[in-house]
């Protein structure tokens, strides 16, 4: 359902993505692991077109964009196919929890308010934050804010949700509640691409694990294979270091 072909991205002279090919099936949960600075986040940001890649194609569902000939209209259409959950949550601080989740529905999808309210509350229920709907983000813990971020991403009704290190900014004690929500989504077969440093989580929740290094995908496969029997030297080294 998602097909990324030969994706390249440079920041000035620095080549961050050097030809990424990746396919994700509908309902699949893919975890991206790898050392810092290898372009994992950039890959996600390119899929959401927050960064414009130089070369390559991104196809999600019916929409396909070629980086070298992309039009604003295509980019907009592609963006509607995915939703991003950010490391630093990036909630709209001037809006209540409910209003944050309402934005994709009311402002973007132009849904009637009554129907949107019902739907937004449904998403908040799924992340167990219905009781906080009138709170402002500053009153919430990091874990709660990130769960609102996930609810907001669900409201986009995307083909795929992109998680950019969703627990990296959290207190260790709050990581669990966020991973729980993501696991829950995985059980419901939500298509997800998750950049994470939580190896145990990747192992348990992902259908496929992608190991990236230096702007390339070094190895990919089911978690049992990547964690249990990695083929590539670099994967072995990385896993050894991260399991210490």
């Amino acid at each position, binding site marked *: 359902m998602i097909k990324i072909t030969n994706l390249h991205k440079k920041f000035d002279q620095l080549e961050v993505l050097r030809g990424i090919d990746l396919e994700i099936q509908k309902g699949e949960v893919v975890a991206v692991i790898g050392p810092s600075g290898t372009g994992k986040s950039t890959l996600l940001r390119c899929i*959401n077109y*927050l960064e414009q890649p130089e070369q390559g194609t991104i196809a999600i569902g019916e929409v396909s964009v070629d980086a070298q000939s992309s039009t604003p209209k295509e980019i*907009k259409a592609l*963006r*509607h196919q*995915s*939703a*991003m959950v*950010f490391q*630093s949550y*990036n*909630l*709209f*601080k*001037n*809006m*209540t929890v409910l209003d944050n989740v309402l*934005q*994709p529905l009311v*402002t*973007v999808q132009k849904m009637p308010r009554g129907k949107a309210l019902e739907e937004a509350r449904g998403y908040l229920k799924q992340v167990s934050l219905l009781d906080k709907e009138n709170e*402002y983000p*500053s009153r919430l813990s990091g874990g709660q804010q990130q769960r609102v*971020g996930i609810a*907001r*991403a669900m*409201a*986009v009704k995307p083909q795929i949700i992109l998680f950019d290190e969703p627990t990296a900014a959290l207190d260790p004690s709050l990581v669990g509640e966020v991973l729980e929500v993501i696991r829950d989504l995985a059980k419901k077969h939500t298509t997800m691409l998750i950049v994470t440093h939580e190896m145990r989580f990747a192992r348990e929740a992902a259908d496929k694990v992608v190991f990236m290094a230096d702007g390339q995908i070094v190895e990919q496969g089911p978690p049992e294979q990547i964690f249990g029997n990695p083929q590539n030297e670099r994967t072995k080294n990385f896993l050894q270091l991260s399991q210490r």
Partner: protein
Amino acid sequence: MDFEFIVKIIPQLIAATKHTISLAILSLVISLTLAIIISSIIYYNVKIITPILKVYVSFFRGTPALCQLYLIYFGLGNMGIPFFAKMTGYTAVVIALSLNMSAYMAENLRGALSSVEKGQSEAGISIGMSSLQIFSLVVFPQAFRVAVPSLSNSFVDLVKGSSMAFTIGVAELMASANMAGIATYNFFEAFFVAAIIYWIITICINFLQKMLEKRLNRAY
């Protein structure tokens, strides 16, 4: 101190205060509108227009307001352009105050706009909001809250700055006080009452500012 004189001139100075307040409010509305437009253009770094607006801001912050007023009222009035030739002193003051204050407000708003984290704009983009929606629903409301203290200072400056209208014969508070003073040589009393009236207006503005801040700070 001639208290009898003070009591006598108070109604007449308060009547003139009407003009002071209308000058300030009119200039506030115009300068704030200009400042929002200018600061958002500079914030989004729109090609060609941004450098022009930066020169505008620099000019109006870098020259005395009185000089700007004379440039508009006497200078442009003398250039044979029908609008400026027929312009009243009142209009000239509104134009001068608006242009002058818009430069200061634009600078303050620009700072406030950049205080809103880029991440929130990115989140807006990623859920499919348009640039205009992101600006008006997310970035501007937060920047406005940050800018309220400096914007209300600007409003106070407008009230005080309107006193320069006196120099081109607009019958506002200062002019009225001067007139009362000249008639009887009670200059101290006349300008003292004027000063007190300005001060009361400023205190009221500061009070309104506190109420507005309280309201805007609910989310934080």
